[in-house]
């Protein structure tokens, strides 16, 4: 496990999301209610990047069919999505958003 800088904390305001690719993984980094979250960026329904979607009510919503995932748990919130996305640990360090990744796993 290792911490990776993914974004400047300043760069994200509430309800904003950016997509990053780190260690081969697509990750959506977002801010909601002053907190930062990091989730797998690829929708589990069909192909779409969640970072093109919107943050609302503690969820990130896919831009294609509006499948929603809980920001904290990655759990799907109903059709059409039924599979969770990964969630990653996040901390802010020296003005940077850091995400913890397990290098070993695919």
């Amino acid at each position, binding site marked *: 496990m290792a911490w990776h800088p993914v974004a400047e904390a300043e760069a994200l305001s509430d309800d904003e999301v950016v997509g990053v690719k780190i260690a081969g993984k697509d990750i959506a980094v977002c801010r909601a209610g002053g907190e930062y979250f990091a989730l797998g960026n690829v929708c589990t329904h*069909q192909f*779409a990047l969640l970072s*093109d*979607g*919107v943050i609302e009510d503690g969820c990130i919503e896919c*831009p294609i069919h*509006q499948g929603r995932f809980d920001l904290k748990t990655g759990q799907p919130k109903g*059709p059409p999505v039924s599979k969770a996305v990964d969630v990653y640990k996040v901390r802010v360090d020296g003005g940077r958003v850091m995400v913890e990744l397990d290098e070993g796993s695919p």
Partner: protein
Amino acid sequence: MSAGRRIVIVGAAQAGARCAEALRAEGFAGRIVLVGDEKHLPYERPALSKAVLLGEAAPESTEVHPRAFYDEKSIELRLGVRAEAIATSAQRVLLSDGAWLTYDRLVLCTGSRARPLAGAPDLPGVHTLRTLDDCAALARALAPGARLVVIGGGFIGLEVASSAVKRGLAVAVVERQDSLLERVVPRAVAAQVERLHRLNGVDLHLGRGAQRILGQDRVTGVELQDGSVLPADLVVIGIGIVPNTELGEAAGARSEDGLVVDEYGRTTLANVWAAGDVTSHPNPILGRRVRLESWQNAQNQAIAVARNLVGQERRYAEVPWFWSDQFDANIQMYGLAGPGDAVAWRGDPAGGKAIGFAFAGGRLVFAVGFNMGGELRLARRLIETGAEVDAAALCDPARKLKDIVSAAAASAVAPAA
């Protein structure tokens, strides 16, 4: 109100499967039978003109659920079987295999079928596209270098055109109206779609319908109303759909371009409900009755009906949403607009990324995005709340859409003093 013990759902596609799923999710513990005349597990159709037709996605990827789901949830599937008639007084449905199913509640999710072209011959090389089987047949026929004529410039026809160009065919589209997508979007939006197709080499023939499909043993061409002939190795007829209302109608349900249901999904027959493409339903946000042909409506009206069946009394009220993928454009739309509606743009549509807005009385009624999924989504709130919006601000790329939407929503809730 209790849903009784036996719910029969006719039509085992998107709406039917979502209704059954939602019934279990809401705790309905009685018997659920899902009857469908296609032999496939319930599936979603959008990819049939896109990824599956292109061979980029497997047919199974369209399944609403894997087979095991239905076993786990005790949802009985009767596939490859048609519902032939409803005996409303006995509350029974007659199936094509001779069986009768008794119901306490019946849900009609019979959807729609491709509209036939009057007088079109049943020739090899002539296709329509509605089912997985249609898709498999068409995919096999899309040989690189072949000449395809698509009759009908609606969404499905245009998506087929796009997929066929990607597969290396020479494609022409014939549309009787002067504009593509005439029934569904403002002409200014259709003009952008037209540009997209011309740019990608589609040979468009607008303002002239197809008069005759030519060929003896297989199709050889299409004759247009002005007498000109487009040679063709393949023809796809995409001139819209017809809702499958007959089963309900024969039982006495009111039908006016779709089975008439209320905002809860009830037909005019006792204990008979309906959802999806087959319904004509009131949309409280738009303030009028609509019949929608969309993935969103198939899923969400079916879920709303399931909730109402278990007694929740919840109106189905959503801003209609539709998407289409053609060439490199993901086109999404909220709300409904007529062909003559004026469109104001945010961004330059010719640049491939833009949002178009249509207004009525200072309120946003329609928004279309080209490759702008996430941002467009913000416009939904504006249509939903019916807030007055400043069109100039919406079209100013220097202003964040998010801020305009929040401001409008705030003023709708608490008008400025």
